[in-house]
């Protein structure tokens, strides 16, 4: 059982747009204040069933990337202006990840579940926070972007093989390419070019047991 209602891609995209608007309104209304960062509400995606747990995990990863890129942007106050291409990457990719989170949250809310506003705390604590602490210049932030994009892309690859609902597969299939386009761009900005590995690997995919908050 996927736990998802029937929803074709066109319906999904319409729903995503509507939910995106509703989400923005909610964020501005002040009715649902974000809990303090020191005491996050922690949950786990696997408390949902089947495909919904995957949707929650992917939403939490997308939210994490929005937050990480925001921190990278704010590091200009300490490091000085980022290179123009890096700045363009961070701002544009951040917008994409925000839209991806909206897409997955529309799946959740469409199934009567609350959307995910939190981030993948497991990846945050184990990967992104330590990297941000260590970073002393822009190149470290580019490397962090590549690492977290890689984790997310790998999780999408695993998800595409695990999802059962066809609409959810199509959504993942429309986001997975974009994450890899981000990676292709980062391969150029970081300066190492293409990996020689001809197939994507899913052995670094995040599980639905990751903490979200």
């Amino acid at each position, binding site marked *: 059982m996927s736990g998802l209602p029937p929803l074709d891609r066109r319906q999904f995209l319409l729903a995503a747009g509507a939910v995106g608007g509703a989400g923005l309104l909610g964020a501005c209304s002040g009715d649902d204040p974000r809990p303090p960062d020191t005491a996050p509400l922690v949950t786990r995606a696997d408390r949902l069933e089947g495909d919904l747990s995957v949707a929650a995990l992917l939403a939490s990863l997308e939210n994490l990337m929005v937050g990480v890129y925001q921190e990278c942007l704010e590091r200009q106050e300490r490091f000085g202006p980022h290179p123009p291409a890096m700045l363009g990457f961070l701002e544009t990719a951040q*917008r994409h990840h925000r839209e991806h989170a909206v897409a997955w949250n529309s799946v959740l809310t469409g199934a009567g579940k609350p959307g995910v506003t939190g981030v993948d705390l497991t990846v945050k604590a184990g990967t992104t926070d330590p990297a941000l602490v260590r970073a002393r210049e822009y190149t470290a932030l580019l490397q962090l972007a590549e690492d977290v994009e890689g984790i997310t892309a790998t999780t999408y690859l695993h998800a595409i093989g695990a999802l059962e609902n066809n609409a959810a597969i199509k959504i993942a299939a429309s986001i997975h390419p974009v994450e890899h*386009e981000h990676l292709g761009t980062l391969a150029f900005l970081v300066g190492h070019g*293409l990996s020689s590995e001809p197939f994507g690997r899913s052995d670094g995919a995040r599980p639905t047991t990751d903490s979200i908050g």
Partner: protein
Amino acid sequence: MLAGTARGAADQALDVQMLQTAASVENALYSAYDVILGLPSFTAPTANGVLKNLFVTARDQHGRHATACNELATTLGGRTQAGANAFLAAAIGRARPGLGDLTQAVELVLELEQASAQTYQFDLGLFADVNARRMAASIMGVECQHAGLLRVVRHLLTARTPELVSFDSGTTLRLPREAGTVGFPEALAKADKARPAADGAVA
């Protein structure tokens, strides 16, 4: 029960067709990269090393992808597709006179990469065999990296700054803002350049 069996056979036949078509697209890509790599702009001592390495890596990966698609197609009861996709082969033929120009060479392979990645993307929602779906997704990601990187290179060549197609220290600082954005034009990928499932099927 009978209906289920008939559906299963139909699904498997469609899977085979999609894998054969994917192999035909991969063969077209391999051919295009191979032709371009034989041209003076890539064989000359002054050839751009970053671009040459990108093309060699991509060509070899497309060869591996074609092999993988054909192996799975034969596992599912189909025949091997050894030929290039006719529609894309025609596009290569039309572009061939201009391929000595780096920008046109990049434009051609980018067009083919997009067709290939979008074919996998479209087919992901149709594959009945979960191994085929997983393999298609694992190839699609790699090809989207090719496309993302090629869009950056195309932008730099079009802007007449080929010297920035470089991994030399300090190049990142000199890249224009667009080099960080042109690689990924949309938040949600489209599949309108996907080749039809039966486009490269082997009868």
